[in-house]
């Protein structure tokens, strides 16, 4: 199944590189959610994430000739997406999450108290993630929310695997320091 997908994608890329807009649209359709998610996790605003994702694909279209089919298209797109998110954060003077509007609950039917508690918790975690340095946050987002391996992250961000490890260690340490008092102990108590 995965092989078929790869072959199709390679063919789509080749056609898109020849200027076929329909082939490129198909690639956009395949990677849209992933790119939007990466940018959203980087900036915390849905509308800005969607705008930046559009910009990401436009940049990809303009620079498609420089893309080597041997590399992963997803990794290449994520690199552009992370850069787009970083640029936007710089321009917008860092965006904080729109309180509770963009957040959804995992549990479909929790009680009223649980809703508030859950929302509050996700809000705190999201703010803590957004407070990380850009470089560390990018690595954390690709690992935690996109499930990418260290090698894939290194490829996407064009950094050595050792740097991926150190940035991830640093990001998690900062998060633990921020969240330990507020949430981690509470989570521990819940598990017990």
């Amino acid at each position, binding site marked *: 199944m995965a092989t078929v997908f790869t072959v199709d994608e390679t063919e789509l890329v080749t056609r898109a590189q020849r200027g076929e807009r329909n082939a*490129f649209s198909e690639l956009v359709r395949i990677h849209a959610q992933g790119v939007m998610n990466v940018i959203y996790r980087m900036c915390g605003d849905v509308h800005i994430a969607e705008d930046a994702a559009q910009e990401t694909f*436009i940049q990809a279209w303009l620079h498609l000739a420089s893309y080597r089919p041997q590399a992963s298209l997803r990794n290449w797109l994520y690199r552009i997406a992370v850069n787009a998110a970083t640029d936007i954060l710089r321009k917008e003077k860092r965006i904080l999450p729109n309180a509770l509007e963009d957040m959804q609950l995992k549990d479909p039917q929790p009680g009223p108290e649980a809703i508030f508690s859950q929302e509050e918790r996700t809000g705190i975690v999201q703010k803590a993630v957004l407070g990380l340095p850009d470089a560390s946050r990018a690595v954390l987002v690709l690992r*935690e929310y996109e499930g990418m391996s260290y090698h894939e992250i290194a490829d996407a961000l064009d950094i050595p695997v050792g740097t991926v490890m150190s940035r991830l260690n640093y990001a998690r340490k900062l998060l633990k320091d921020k969240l330990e008092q507020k949430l981690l102990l509470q989570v521990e108590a819940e598990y017990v």
Partner: protein
Amino acid sequence: MSKHVTEWLNAYLDGELQGSRLQHVETHLAECRVCRAELDSLERLSGLLDEVPAPEFTSSERFAAQVNLRLPHPQTTVSRKKILEIGWWMTPVGLLAAWVFISTSFLVNEVLSVANNLGLLSSVSDWMTFGAVSITDWSATLGQFGVLSGDGLNWAASTEAFTRTSLPQLTLQVSIALLYLSWIAIWWARRRREAHGQLLEG
């Protein structure tokens, strides 16, 4: 007990360790409560991060359609447009260069003519006197054959001199001036149209 493996716990949690390193970390974790506690803490953090859900984005199909609408045209069109734009901005420069060239040519020609009339070019090579040929060929011929004489001959000589030297110069310079004014008029009209368009978009 071996040294703590804190620095490798993230990679262990992410399933990135292999071979002897993995074995070493696993062995250490089996006997070290500190590192086990640290690993538990990292797992809880990962669980917390996982609790932050992704919002509902625009559907992939709709998003792809939106991107498709914004995709620029192929590079060739852009290049052609760029060349036209460069050509447009080079037009006044070209006109100015043409005007300078024509004026200089006529000036040199006149200087050579005057020098020739004064007999200053008699000792120089032929190519230098090329531009200093007589400007009254036809009136002189008519005078030689006795068709014209006196004031008539003078008037014919002046007219011929004017049509041979000043008139072409004047015509060319007026043409260049008209082209330049036309360019300015078009530039002004374009600017006004752009300003109007921006106003409408705003």
